[in-house]
Structures are given as structure tokens and as C-alpha cells.
């Protein structure tokens, strides 16, 4: 019966070798010796054997993730054994008790003792599984006594991180260039798993994540930590991790959240505590300065060319996912920006909707996401691109009025 499990895995590995022609990229993850042993011993079993080729569950880099991995392997092996017995009996019977061999059917069709046995034994096996499962679960759900707390907010289609005890917060967006997605450039190594600004956390520290959402449900998932928690709008879920090894850990949004659900990765960098502190201080300083700079720049105005250039960049980075690069939107889903009443005649409404969003729609508030200059630029851009040609110019100071409303 093993062949049932074996065959596809063999096939798969062969196929992999043919297609790739080279061994897989070494992963940087720590592997414990014990698992190596099990893996070697159980080389016949595909999931274990394939651990090396990243076909098995991620073992991860935390104590919890390792416990989860072990639990996964345990239950998998139990299932294999039960499968071997059940399918073994079945194939034996198919082989021996066939009519073509002249086998005459027996006439039994009940046996209370046997029936009780195969009700009770599986039950006991399940109890055996439930015990480690329960203790692992209790450990995973204990978010108390964390040293660092990060507020993680999902929105269509990016993550926002905010360090609760410090003045640091920022958005984290997919960094894979559009050309790679559209097959116009070769795909990089971390295709779809790279972001502009990863979350940074300290190692050897209990980090608590408070997870929520601004719009639909997302799910924040980092396989290496065995953390996956839904980001529910209006509610906060908690999760935690304690990473032993510095490194870069990649995950993805794991709840269908609309069009670009496949394009909102999670990247976490774990740094040594000292390094982390330095990074955090630096961030805090930079963000403070940026804010001050922004206030200072309020007085300055930009030229039309500057506005249009910056605006286009901001538009393509933040707006085009919905309203499309040509501003036409997707009829019935995302409104067009071309030639509409608001674009041509309602400059105040336009600034307002970009700054504050529109309740009950996918149009979110950008005031925390973009700088005043960027908002001014993108509004100017939208009012003058694609034949809108209103000639209107919006400056940071104009936008500021709406932000502080």
C-alpha cells in the first residue's frame, strides 16, 4: 500500500529532476538533527523524504513551529500505518478472494466483537492524538507576557505595521515589479514574496502581534513561525512568536481578500536585539524628521511637471491596482476616473475622497499612507491625465486642510 504514497512521490521527484536539472536551492533554515534522522530512516515515505526538497511542511524557526511540525509528522505517520493496514487487508482480499481464482464466498456478515474493536481502537488512537494537540494549542494561544507588541493591519492589498510602544509605523507593499508578473522580465528568486519594507522583530524575544484589518478579512501568515491569524475588520486577534535565529522569513496573505489576494506577501526580518534596537531608534528618528520636513514643505509649492511626475509614480503604485493604469477602472467594480463629474468639477470632493476614503467601499483613506505632497501630486495627476486636462494644480497645503479636518 505504500506504493500508493510512494508512486506519486517518486514520479514527482523524477519529474522535478527532469524539469529543473539541478538540486534545489539550499534553504537557510535550521534543521534539527533528530528530524534529519527520521527523514533518512523514513526515506520511503514521500512527505518525509521530500522534506529536503521543500515539499513537506515548513519546520520553521521557533519552538512552537517545531512542535507543530512534529505533531504533523506524528499524525501523518499514524495515518500511514492505518492506511497500510486497511489497504493491505483490502488488496490481500482482492488478490486472494477473487472469483477468477475460484474462491467461494463466505457467508458471515456480522461480528459484534470485531465491530466493537474497530470502534474503540480508532477512538483510543484519536485520544492519543488529541493530547499533544491540546498542549501545543494551549502554548500557541498564550500571548501573555510579551516584550514587544506590533499592531498588524491588513488592507486591500498591503500590510501596515505599527510598533505600539514606539513612534514607528509604516506600510509594507509587494515589491515584485509588474513586468515580472506580466512575464516581461525574468522572475527573481523571491518572486511575489518580497516587499518594500519588511517587518523587523528582535530575536529571542516574545513578540506579540495584534492583528486586524481595515476592510475585508485577510490572514497574516508566516510559515516559519507557524503563525496564521485572520485579520478581521473591527476586531483584534492576537498571536505571538519567539524567533531563535536571525533571518528573513517569508509568508503570504492567507484569506481571499479580493483581486490582489495573491499579491500581498509578508516579510519579516528577525534581528539580534541590539541590532533591532538600533534599527528602531533610527526609524523613529527618520519618521519624526519626515513629519517635520513635511510641515516645512507645506509652504513650498511644486511645479506642474513635478506634480505630474510624482503623481504618476504614486498613482501606479497605489491606485492603479483598482482604477487601472489607464484610469478606466473595472466597470461595476472599481469606478473610472476619466471624464467623471468629480474629476472635472469637484476638486474638494476629490481631495477629500483620497484623504479620507469613502465609507463602505474599497476606497480607503490614504492620509496615513501617503505624504501630503504625494497626495497633492496624485490628485493633480488624476485631474490632468487621460484627457481629463483640467489644468488644476493641487499643493500640499491644500491637502493639509483636509487631513486636519
Amino acid at each position: 500500500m505504500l506504493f500508493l504514497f510512494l508512486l506519486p512521490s517518486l514520479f514527482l521527484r523524477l519529474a522535478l529532476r527532469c524539469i529543473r536539472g539541478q538540486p534545489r536551492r539550499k534553504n537557510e533554515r535550521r534543521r534539527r538533527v533528530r528530524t534529519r534522522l527520521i527523514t533518512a530512516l523514513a526515506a520511503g515515505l514521500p512527505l518525509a523524504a521530500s522534506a529536503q526538497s521543500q515539499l513537506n511542511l515548513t519546520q520553521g524557526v521557533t519552538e512552537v513551529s517545531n512542535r507543530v511540525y512534529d505533531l504533523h509528522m506524528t499524525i501523518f505517520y499514524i495515518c500511514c500505518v492505518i492506511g497500510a493496514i486497511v489497504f493491505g487487508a483490502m488488496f490481500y482480499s482482492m488478490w486472494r478472494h477473487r472469483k477468477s481464482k475460484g474462491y467461494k464466498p463466505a457467508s458471515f456478515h456480522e461480528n459484534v466483537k470485531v465491530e466493537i474493536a474497530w470502534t474503540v481502537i480508532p477512538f483510543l488512537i484519536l485520544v492519543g492524538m488529541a493530547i499533544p494537540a491540546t498542549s501545543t494549542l494551549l502554548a500557541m494561544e498564550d500571548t501573555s507576557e510579551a516584550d514587544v507588541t506590533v499592531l498588524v493591519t491588513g488592507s486591500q492589498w498591503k500590510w501596515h505595521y505599527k510598533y505600539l510602544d514606539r513612534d514607528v509605523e509604516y506600510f509594507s507593499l509587494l515589491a515584485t515589479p509588474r513586468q515580472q508578473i506580466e512575464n516581461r522580465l525574468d522572475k527573481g528568486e523571491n518572486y511575489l514574496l518580497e516587499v518594500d519594507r519588511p517587518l523587523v522583530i528582535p530575536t529571542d524575544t516574545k513578540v506579540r502581534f495584534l492583528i486586524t484589518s481595515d476592510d475585508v478579512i485577510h490572514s497574516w501568515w508566516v510559515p516559519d513561525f507557524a503563525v496564521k491569524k485572520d485579520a478581521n475588520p473591527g476586531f483584534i486577534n492576537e498571536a505571538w512568536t519567539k524567533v531563535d535565529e536571525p533571518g528573513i522569513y517569508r509568508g503570504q496573505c492567507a484569506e481571499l481578500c479580493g483581486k490582489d489576494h495573491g499579491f500581498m506577501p509578508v516579510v519579516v526580518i528577525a534581528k539580534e536585539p541590539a541590532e533591532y534596537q538600533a534599527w528602531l531608534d533610527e526609524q523613529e528618528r527618520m519618521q519624526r524628521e519626515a513629519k517635520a520636513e513635511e510641515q516645512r514643505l507645506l509652504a513650498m509649492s511644486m511645479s506642474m511637471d513635478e506634480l505630474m511626475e510624482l503623481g504618476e509614480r504614486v498613482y501606479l503604485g497605489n491606485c492603479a491596482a483598482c482604477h487601472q493604469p489607464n484610469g478606466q477602472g473595472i466597470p461595476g467594480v472599481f469606478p473610472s476616473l476619466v471624464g467623471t463629474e468629480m474629476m472635472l468639477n469637484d476638486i474638494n470632493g476629490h481631495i477629500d475622497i483620497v484623504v479620507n476614503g469613502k465609507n463602505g467601499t474599497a476606497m480607503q483613506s490614504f492620509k496615513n499612507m501617503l505624504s501630503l505632497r504625494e497626495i497633492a501630486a496624485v490628485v493633480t495627476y488624476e485631474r490632468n491625465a487621460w484627457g481629463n486636462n483640467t489644468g488644476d494644480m493641487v499643493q500640499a497645503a491644500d491637502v493639509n486642510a483636509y487631513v486636519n479636518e
Partner: protein
Amino acid sequence: MAEKHEKYYVPASSPWPIVGAIGLGLIAFGAGHTVIESSKEIDGWGAEVLLAGLAVIVVMLFGWFRDQINESMAGLYSAQLSASYRQGMSWFIFSEVMFFAAFFGALFYARFIAVEWLGGASNNAMTNEILWPGFEAMWPLTETPGGIESGSMGWFGLPLYNTIILIVSSVTCHFAHVSLEKNKRTPLKLWLGATIILGCIFLYLQGWEYVHAYNELGLTLDSGIYGNTFYMLTGFHGMHVTLGTLMLIVMFFRVLKGHFTPDNHFAFQATSWYWHFVDVVWVCLFIFVYIL
């Protein structure tokens, strides 16, 4: 055909089911478009299609029931067939119970879980602290986390009267049924008529209560989860009462025409079950929506 009554009656063919299917198709299509059109404030023909669908259903019901009444009067039905009808009706009522269960489930979840959690209960301390600071869990939810305020509904007064009215109507309906089984036609008509009148009064008062809730209490369909569950539960109940009353009225006319005998009155019995079911739902509503 001597053994006619032994045999299970299977009609050879009937146009009504497909008419009914067309009707439902039109209703679904029309209702969908009506909703879309009204939400986008555009003109369209959704409402026309919806009305056409309803008309088709009405025609279907008349045709179908006419056939059935004729068959029944022609004595084609056996005891086994009536048993099928009765069982079918009971399972239908069970499905209705489950429909209401979904909304009662929403009520209990909102009240004991969602609102409590928004107020910081269970594993949601941070939900309250960060997202809804200052929000306090309460029921009825007269101020939502988002800050919408509304009044709430007491149980004394109108709701209590309505409860009494419906319970009494259940009793009168039962008396009507008993009279029918004893073949006493005049009490039958009186009790049945009384039931119908009570049903109408209930509906009238319920409408009156809605107006009051909207205008004076500020309790509306969009004033948060308390109003939502209140209107959805009482609204669907009201729709069922309306349907039940219409069924009772049809029964009344059939009684006038001399239909039904003490041992062959499935339609009447089904209607009375339905009425009792509607009544039981109201009692649950009264307890869980109004009193508690």
C-alpha cells in the same frame, strides 16, 4: 376501478411545476435586478420582471390547487396520499423553523458574543482598547461601536397585546379545526373568521409598531445590530403571518363553498399547522427579542 383507492395516485403530467419554476426564475432574476437598480439609482425593468414572476406564481398556485381540489373531490386520494401531504407539510415547517433558527442564531451570537467582544470580553481586550475605546457592551445595543444611537423596544404594551392576540388566534384556529372534525359548519366559520380577524389585527398593530419605532424611537433597519435582528426577525415573522392569514382566508372561502369533510381536509389542517407554527415563532420572538 374497484381497487382505485388502494393505489397511490400519481398524476400523469402537469404543467404547473414548470410554470412555477419559470415564476421563481423570474422572481429571482427580477428581484436581483430590482435591488441592483435601486442601489445604483438607475432605471430598469427589474421590478417589472419581479412582478411578472409573482403573477406567474399566483397563476400557478391557482391552477395547481384547482387541480388538486378537483382530484380530491373526485375521490382519487387515498389515506396514504394524505399522509404524504401531511408529512411533506411537517417537514416544510421544519425547514421554516431552521430558517428562523439562522436569524435567532444571529441574534444570540450578536448579543452574547459579538457585542461582548467589542466591549472587550473574552480574548478581545485589545479590540475594545484599540479599536473601540469607550464602547461599552450592552443589550439592547442603543449605541453601536460606530456611534449610531437608537431607542429600544419594550415588551409591555403593544408587543404584549400582540402576543395575546396571536395566542388567542391559535386557540380559535384550533377550535375551528375541532369544529370541522365534528362537522359543525357554523362554529367552524365563526372560529375561522375570528382567527382571520385576529391575524389582521396583529398585522395592523405590528405595522403601527414599526411606524412608532421608526419615527419616535429612531430604531431603524440600519441602526445597528439590535435594529437588524429586531426587524429581520419580526419582519420575516410578519411576512409569515401575512401568508398564513391569506391561507386562512382561502380556507374560509373553501369552507363557504362546502369543501372539506371531517376526514378529508388536508389543506385546512396544513393551514392550521402553519398558523400554530407562526404563533410559536412569535412566542420565541416575544421572549428573546422583546423581554430578555
